[in-house]
């Protein structure tokens, strides 16, 4: 069989990547507070405990607030950037687009520390707002990449046809462009939301006293007897992320199919 070596490598890689995550639900449903094999009995006690922790409810609320804001702002920025990249020619276009995409490859800890220094310097109090700013910075490249695909594949003569039939630039955007890139926008919103929900380092540095869910989780790790609850929460987070990303990809693919275009990738 050709490519046999590669295939084995891929399987090992996937096992290595996902096995720890698969252990999460295993211990989340295990009745013992000690995270080790052999397993004790099956229980849903840890999940039942989740809503009874006020600090966790607060953290969830903070995370949701931040994720929604981040998704909206970074998608809006993404729409502007993708539209500009697809339609207009301007000086240093390549450099500017490169700089927008740069946070994708910068170490997050560097971004987090730099932002912390800046915010402290300008006297912006740490809290949800500063986390949103940080998250927007790291989410926007993803949004731009997703939306670029959607905007670039739009035939410019569609816009011209609408204008030719009497519409203005703005109504053309609303009636033609927006509906056609909507699957991309939904996909971008969901992915930014998920990234923000799951992000830890920036939130850890910039959240001040308003802990996000991952920051709360981190705090709980100090108490060994709380570990199963952390596992339960982690299970839910992973599940939610997978569901959201799946919806995002389905939305993007349906958009491609609806416009009758070739699928040129995307993130997933």
């Amino acid at each position: 069989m050709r490519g046999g070596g590669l295939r084995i490598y891929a399987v090992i890689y996937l096992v290595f990547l996902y096995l720890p995550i698969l252990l999460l639900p295993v211990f989340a449903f295990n009745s013992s507070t000690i995270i080790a094999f052999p397993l004790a009995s099956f229980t849903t006690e840890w999940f039942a405990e989740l809503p009874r922790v006020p600090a966790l409810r607060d953290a969830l609320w903070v995370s949701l607030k931040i994720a929604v804001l981040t998704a909206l702002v970074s998608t809006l920025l993404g729409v502007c950037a993708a539209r500009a990249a697809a339609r207009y020619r301007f000086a240093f276009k390549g450099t500017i687009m490169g700089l927008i995409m740069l946070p994708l490859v910068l170490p997050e800890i560097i971004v987090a520390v730099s932002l912390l220094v800046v915010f402290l310097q300008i006297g912006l109090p740490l809290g949800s707002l500063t986390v949103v700013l940080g998250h927007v910075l790291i989410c926007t490249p993803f949004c731009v990449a997703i939306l670029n695909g959607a905007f670039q594949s739009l035939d410019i003569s569609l816009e011209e046809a609408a204008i030719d039939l009497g519409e203005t630039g703005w109504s053309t955007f609303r009636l033609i462009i927006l509906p056609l890139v909507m699957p991309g926008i939904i996909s971008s919103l969901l992915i930014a939301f998920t990234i923000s929900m799951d992000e830890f380092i920036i939130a850890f540095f910039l959240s001040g006293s308003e802990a996000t869910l991952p920051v709360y989780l981190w705090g709980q790790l100090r108490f060994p007897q709380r570990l199963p609850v952390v596992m339960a929460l982690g299970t839910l987070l992973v599940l939610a992320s997978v569901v959201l990303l799946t919806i995002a990809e389905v939305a993007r693919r349906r958009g491609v199919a609806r416009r009758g275009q070739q699928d040129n990738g995307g993130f997933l």
Partner: protein
Amino acid sequence: MALISLSGIDKYYGTYHALRDISLEIEGGEFFSLLGPSGCGKTTLLRTIAGFETPDKGVLTIDGRDMARVSANRRPTNMVFQSYAIFPHLTVAQNVGFGLRRSDLTKAEKAREVGAALEMVGLGGYGARAAHALSGGQRQRVALARALILKPKVLLLDEPLSALDKKMREQMQSELRQLQRQVGITFVLVTHDQEEALIMSDRIAVMFEGEIAQLATPQDLYLRPNSRRVGEFIGMMNLIPGRMDRDGSQMIGDIPGLGRLPIVPDLLTDGQGPGDCTFGIRPESMSLVFNGELPTGKFVDGTVVERAYYGDMTYYEVLLDGGTAPVTCSMKNLVSRPVLDAGARTRLAWEPGALIVFDAA
């Protein structure tokens, strides 16, 4: 007063001079074609009329109104795009009715208009279909109906048939022509297909490199091209270098292989006099003389070098005795006529008035 009038239109893309001093007038109700090879600026000129390109110089008026300050969405023109630009997220009816969005018609009236427009292009009953699931020919019709529903003064068409297969294209050519007569709207068609332009147009502007080379009716263009380039671009033409001499009041052409023959004064343009020149003659103006057929006019002997059989016609390349290069001649195939093979001796006759004189190469 002409419906569309362009005078001295210049357009640059950066340093590239895309339109050079274009002046022309298009009458109301005319079927006008812009014909030229790829990259000659046809689309640019059409888009200038539509308002998608701004000329750097010159004046464009439509119906007597200067269009300089009128944006594309306010011009009395509508366009059929080369890609058709059908809105993929809308139904056929929504596409066709798109232009009516801003009109004050009631919903029922709009629906009636859309129905009528679809009927007109032969798509009655297709209204509820999703637009992205149409065939090429159907998209073309939707684009046509969508552009015509606003009853524009001018319909602009950018190579609307180039994406269709040959059969479909021929059918649409006659349908388009019929439609134009029926609605009486001025059509401006861009095409690089000379046959299409000849079939459909009232007048044709031939463009090369951003300039209009000749503007004439199809017959004039075909029979009296004003340059070798136009002659070669429209249909097939033999170009034979030769000399022109004056013989009293008559001009005589001296053509290697064909001999000396008089030139019809009509076909000479101003400034053409004795000296070296190039003679143009269409393949159908020459004919092989078969046994039993009487030659009309002069004839010379030659040998068939090559032939191409097209079913209805056969094209022969004949090397005339005393000629330097073979000439192409087309013959209608009749049951009583044999098809000659390469190497056959034959006799060539030509219409005396068929010679066109161009400047020497």
